[in-house]
């Protein structure tokens, strides 16, 4: 008997991605001259890969008729972000999710300083508030964003809602009013069964996200995206973190080639490693 569950998906917006170019000049991630942040202007952005997997899982569950509706959520500025682009990144991210099969979107408007300091704590507060407002039964997120690699939002959201969590999911099965989650852990795989409502975070092997094709993107334009302000949700976005400094990793020293094992041992001794 298919269950009627509402779903919420969290998307990480504005994730800078180094485009994997095979051309002669691969783009580099650079630190701003004042060492306050990474340069994001002009850098190609797209939906966080783990979030794509989360969206795919939600859409799959809907296609199996196990859930009623998929709602895609993203937080970010309303207006266009970059001087050389005239589209809104957050909207584009939500539209991609809608093109993949989500039913409707929610754009949580966060801009300026609030957006610069937006982190897992703030996002999880927003997600928790929305989950309650939308009466969601399942919140699916990517396990971490590839720009900050925090791996905290899902866990914090579950804690704020006092819901069980199935993180690093490589398999999700709905069984009645429970969710069976196979988790990827250091020692291998762990299978748990948790009650709904619950939070699940997607790991790489959960599924293979579909590509948002042009016809689906066109169809997705008819789907609704609601605009919501954090204040409407009663969420305080004040950050408790202050970024002191951002530095590039040290330049990798060129390696040395040695001819024999004796040479290797010699060099290791010289540099004080043995």
């Amino acid at each position, binding site marked *: 008997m298919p269950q009627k569950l509402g779903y919420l998906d969290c998307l990480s917006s504005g994730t800078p991605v180094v*485009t*994997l*170019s*095979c*051309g002669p000049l691969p783009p580099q991630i650079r630190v701003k001259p004042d060492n306050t942040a990474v340069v994001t202007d002009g850098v190609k952005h797209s939906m966080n*890969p*783990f979030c794509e997997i989360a969206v795919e899982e939600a859409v799959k569950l809907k296609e199996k008729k196990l859930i009623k509706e998929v709602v895609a959520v993203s937080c970010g500025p309303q207006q266009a972000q970059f001087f050389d682009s005239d589209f809104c990144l957050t909207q584009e991210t939500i539209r991609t999710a809608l093109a993949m099969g989500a039913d409707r979107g929610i754009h949580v408007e966060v801009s300026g300083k609030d957006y610069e300091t937006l982190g897992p704590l703030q996002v999880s507060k927003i997600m928790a508030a929305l989950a309650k407002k939308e009466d969601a039964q399942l919140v699916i997120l990517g396990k971490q964003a*590839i720009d900050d690699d925090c791996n905290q939002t899902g866990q914090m959201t579950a804690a704020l809602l006092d819901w069980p969590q199935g993180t690093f999911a490589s398999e999700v099965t709905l069984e009645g009013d429970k969710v069976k989650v196979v988790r990827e852990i250091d020692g291998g795989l762990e299978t748990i069964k948790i009650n709904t409502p619950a939070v699940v975070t997607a790991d*790489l092997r959960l599924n*293979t*996200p579909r*590509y948002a*094709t*042009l*016809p689906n993107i066109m169809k997705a334009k008819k789907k609704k995206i609601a605009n919501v302000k954090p204040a409407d949700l009663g969420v305080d976005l004040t950050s408790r973190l202050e970024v002191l400094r951002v530095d590039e990793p040290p330049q990798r020293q060129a390696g040395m080639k040695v001819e024999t094992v004796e040479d290797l041992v010699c060099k290791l001794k010289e540099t004080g490693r043995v």
Partner: protein
Amino acid sequence: GVRVHLVCDMANPLRGEVIKLYKTLLYLGREYPQGAAYFRERLKSAFMKNKDVTDPEKIKQLVARGDFVIKELEALYFLRKYRAMKKRYYEPEK
């Protein structure tokens, strides 16, 4: 390269399909490894090469070939992204 066609005959019902195929490929070409401009050049010349094809069977074959290229591009992009993720975040399999 892609061998499809641009049908100039306004009455041909396959014209819509051809244009849709071109648009889809153009959209996918934005993320092509050697650049969107490179892809667009080759896409256009491939279509122009076949612009005088009128036989509907031949046209359908060429469109099917174009659909195959779409699947190849989607696979390329998927592999590229997920290989990068796997390399970055997971231990190499022993």
